[in-house]
């Protein structure tokens, strides 16, 4: 049935298989690169505009250090005055990295937060993206008056039921962003 397993045949076969496969992949990569970039850019843009007050003029991404990690932020300006910052913040959740966008107004109050990517357990930690009660509490959260820690750690953040680790990671991400914003 199959051709003889001589060295020559094996080399030719493996080489041509790899060659054709790489060519195919390179082609598909080139074709899908644009839609992938557009999708990612849209996700980022949506999350930035979701966490900032409306009507501001948005700056380009600028580098910043958040919680010791390099990250990026966006400034929203009105009449030349910065009114709010959107800071990308990553911490380690229960299932892997948890990346969120934190919007902070110029007076240091959290305006809103939004999840960029997470690897939390569906039905548990993944609720950080859907649980209305958990998400709503970040709107107008003032770190000067309230403590940025979950209630279990004597803070003022309501954790998601049965997902303390995710809630802690989320809270830490917000805290890091708030602290990073002070350096701006």
């Amino acid at each position, binding site marked *: 049935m199959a051709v003889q397993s001589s060295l020559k045949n094996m080399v030719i076969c493996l080489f041509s*298989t790899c060659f054709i496969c790489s060519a195919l992949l390179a082609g598909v990569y080139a074709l899908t690169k644009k839609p992938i970039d557009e*999708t*990612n850019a849209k996700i980022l843009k949506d999350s930035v505009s979701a966490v900032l007050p409306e009507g501001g003029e948005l700056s380009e991404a600028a580098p910043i250090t958040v919680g010791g990690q390099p990250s990026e932020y966006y400034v929203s300006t009105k009449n030349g005055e910065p009114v709010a910052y959107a800071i990308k913040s990553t911490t380690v959740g229960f299932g892997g990295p948890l990346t969120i966008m934190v919007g902070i107004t110029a007076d240091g109050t959290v305006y809103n937060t939004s999840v960029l*990517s997470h690897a939390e357990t*569906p*039905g*548990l930690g993944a609720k950080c993206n859907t649980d209305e009660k958990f998400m709503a509490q970040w709107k107008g959260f003032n770190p000067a008056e309230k403590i940025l820690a979950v209630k279990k750690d004597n803070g003022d953040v309501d954790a998601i039921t049965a997902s303390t680790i995710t809630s802690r990671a989320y809270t830490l991400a917000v805290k890091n962003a708030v602290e990073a914003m002070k350096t701006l």
Partner: protein
Amino acid sequence: MSKFKLITKGLVKDNPTFVLLLGMCPTLATTTSAINGLSMGLATLFVLVLSNMAISLIAPVVPDKVHIPVYIVVIATFVTLLQFLMQAFVPSVYASLGLFIPLIVVNCIVLGRAEAFANKNSIVDSAFDGIGVGLGFTLSLTVIGIVREILGSGSIFGWKFLAGDGMLAFVMAPGAFLVLGYLMVLFNKFVAKK
């Protein structure tokens, strides 16, 4: 064997999940909800059909001693291709299945069908075999996903019929083993008893 039989064989008698017990890792890990199970099944179906066809086509010219590496390269190519396509067009599904898409490469169902069927059958038969086994896998994963979602989250396909949380254990790993085990018993008792 008729084309119809090739498809039903993968669904019932050679059901990859409940009878052959192949591909257990993605089965246990991705079936946290009905939609996740369904997407994982369809992703595997896509790779299975294409790799079965490609392998039945090239099998006659592949020397025996290197056939495994060649098959793996072919399968890996289709998986990477699928990954690009999902990232571009269904980013939300890609986000929830993430890690498990690349793992389709080492899913023993895919290599198993290549070894056991595709390399000695015609391209058309191989395609139908891929569809049958792929559908069997998809169906099993969806059923496991539905059961786990009902018990664990009180919803079906994201539609919530129960306020509050379900039995959270069913969303996590122990629930996966329990549901898989009981469904396997039921399947073998009532469906595949011959």
